[in-house]
């Protein structure tokens, strides 16, 4: 048992090895981030809906810039389990795309001092135009999304907009028009039912899909104050008038029998396929749905996204406001062997060339300004771009899901109950409020404010 004792002394919390020497190279115009000569680079990517084409594309650019470096690029689906021990032991890769269901808690990573400050990257000249910095290339909100406690800890690559999806051809065929308010929506639902089609389906196994239209309606009704109250865990935030009215609006879909039977038991792909095969008219989703469904979308389906309708004509936010946020988080670990190389890799990734390729291969919006200009966009992506255009500055987003995952789990459970008709809006709000209060009272959970 002597061996066991020896290993025990190298306990997980005893700290990793001394940090390895993090070399830096000379800063030149050609090498603005000071990447050391010939240093290898290890890139670990989340292999999900956007595929690996764009991250490999960036590898190619990086290899052109650093011909002596050996670059390893690996796509993973459970980033968390694989990388967590590497972070603790002080041997993380140089760049990580921390996304997907198995991602690491990024706030905890930041709190543990595991992330490199990305300020140098934002100030560095972009690959496209030395006169423009990388930071200037990004859409508004992206730097804010990646800032934790005043430090830019990560940068998201994809700009996601949430809305309600429909088939243009189906709507044209029946002469349906998109509803402007929720009352119009309920009236249209009756009409759709009359045509023998279920008005709505949703990804019941993952209730957060339906939480997006619900919280969009709430934000529209109550404005940004409502959103901030929720994110800041304010007392009775979930019992605000707008929140209850939004929950009631969604609950009316259930009460009115407007949801495809059995939806509460469908996975996201199953629900989306039911929608694509014409069994339901509307489905709530983020803008990634077109990429996810590209293999099974029927010819001439013409999918498009509409902004969630106004809750009432008296909403606080103007028509066309949408919930949007950046996602697909790229970070450079603080203990990486080649953090400067990691930053330079991101400089390649956030270039116009890679971003354009991303829009084409992943059918999603990159966060790089003007990347989709002049591209021949597919029907879904074009509708997303149009919705963003209409929304202008009125793009809102919630933070509680990232800040307090404990709360998000309870929100989803309650929303599942609401949609299954087992809870009414009051019970829904009470349940979530209780969970929010518990998080607010728990000292062991780090708090954020906006």
């Amino acid at each position: 048992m002597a061996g066991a004792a020896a290993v025990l002394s190298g306990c997980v919390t005893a700290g990793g090895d001394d940090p390895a020497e993090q070399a830096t190279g000379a800063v030149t115009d050609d090498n603005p981030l000071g990447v050391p000569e010939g240093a290898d680079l290890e890139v670990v990517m989340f292999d999900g809906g956007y595929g690996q084409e764009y991250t490999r594309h960036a590898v190619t650019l990086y290899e052109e810039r650093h011909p002596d470096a050996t670059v390893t690029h690996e796509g993973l689906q459970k980033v968390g389990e694989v990388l967590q021990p590497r972070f603790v032991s002080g041997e993380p890769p140089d760049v990580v795309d921390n996304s997907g269901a198995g991602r690491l808690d990024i706030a905890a990573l930041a709190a543990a001092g595991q992330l490199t400050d990305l300020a140098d990257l934002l100030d560095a000249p972009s690959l496209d135009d030395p006169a423009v910095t990388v930071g200037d290339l990004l859409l508004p909100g992206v730097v804010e999304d990646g800032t934790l406690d005043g430090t830019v800890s990560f940068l998201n690559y994809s700009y996601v907009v949430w809305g309600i999806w429909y088939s243009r051809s189906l709507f044209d065929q029946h002469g349906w028009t998109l509803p402007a308010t929720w009352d119009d929506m309920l009236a249209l639902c009756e009409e759709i039912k009359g045509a023998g089609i279920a008005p709505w389906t949703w990804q019941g196994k993952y209730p957060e899909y339906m939480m997006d239209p619900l919280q969009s309606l709430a934000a529209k009704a109550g404005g940004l104050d409502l959103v901030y109250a929720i994110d800041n865990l304010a007392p009775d935030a979930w019992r605000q008038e707008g929140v209850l009215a939004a929950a009631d609006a969604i609950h009316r879909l259930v009460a009115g029998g407007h949801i495809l039977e059995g939806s509460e038991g469908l996975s996201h792909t199953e629900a989306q396929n039911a929608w694509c095969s014409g069994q339901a008219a509307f489905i709530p989703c983020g803008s990634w749905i077109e990429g996810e469904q590209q293999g099974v979308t029927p010819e001439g389906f013409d999918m498009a996204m509409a902004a969630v309708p106004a809750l009432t004509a008296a909403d606080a936010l103007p028509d066309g406001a949408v919930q949007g946020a950046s996602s697909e988080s790229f970070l450079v670990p603080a203990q990486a062997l080649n953090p400067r190389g990691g930053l330079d890799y991101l400089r390649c990734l956030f270039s116009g060339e890679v971003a354009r390729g991303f829009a084409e291969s992943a059918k999603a919006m990159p966060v790089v300004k003007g990347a989709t200009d002049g591209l021949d966009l597919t029907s879904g992506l074009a509708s997303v771009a149009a919705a963003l255009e209409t929304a202008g500055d009125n793009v809102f987003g919630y933070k509680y899901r990232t800040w307090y995952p404990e709360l998000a789990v309870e929100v989803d459970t309650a929303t599942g109950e609401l949609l299954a008709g087992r809870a009414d809006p009051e019970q829904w709000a009470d349940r979530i409020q209780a969970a929010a209060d518990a998080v607010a009272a728990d000292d062991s959970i780090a708090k954020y404010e906006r």
Partner: protein
Amino acid sequence: MRHGKYRFLIGALAPPLLLYGVFVVSPYAQAFYLALTDWDGLSAEAGLVGLQNFADLWSDPLFLAALRNNGLMLVVVPTATIALALFFAACLTLGGGMRRRGRGVHGSGLYRIVYFFPQLLSVAILGVLFQFVYTPGNGLLNGLLGAVGLDGLQRSWLADPATALPAVTAVMVWSAVGFYVVLFTAAMESVPTDVVEAATLDGAGRFTVFRRITLPLVWDSVQVAYVYLGILALDGFALVQIMSVGPGGPDNATEVIGLTLYRAAFTYGEFGYASAMGVTLFFITLTLTALAMRATKRERVELA
């Protein structure tokens, strides 16, 4: 002639115990220590918090729901599996009457081959497969019910709190029964046929033969089965994670300790707290095993 006993013992036991100590005991010992800390799973330091994590467990609704569900599974999975397996094994061996003299019903070999199939599927495959079996619209189960005119029984099996946990439990039982049928069948076949014949001549019915002669002789196998199935029932993590709504839903109906622990460790970064759950689970299992072994201990029937 028995000199060198200790030299042999040391030589024989050192490699396995070293292996076990390094790869099993030391990580678990660290987990015991971590259960007393607030380690987030990512930083190099952890603060000692004493028994706070254990105290918090009892006011955590998710953990309590998980405990309840695992408890239910612990009762249902071994009992149902062993009952079904004993029943089928008895059908296979005791059928056929005197003519076939304990060789069982016709085609019993074929049944045994087929029954074993589910054992060949890994948990990941099971989860994915049964997710489709239970799917509301075009799933196998609802399709089957519709085909035989039982439309009224069709439902969203995994989305209804009343049926979600039974649905998951049924998968565990479904996959385990065959293995134990094979196990018990062989145990029953080893019962000497002349004993059975003698009993039958004395006028004992099949059920009496089963209860008085067969069952006591397979009791050892039943005991092993109980422990093995109990451990299976306390897990359930992979199945729930793949199949259930949420996962763990609806309304925490399928929450299991493995899932709560996994979420705490990897989603919330509360590794110390997660370790406390594991340690608690360990002691619960330990107690239950000890109790089960005591309860099922019976004098073995010697036939020799």
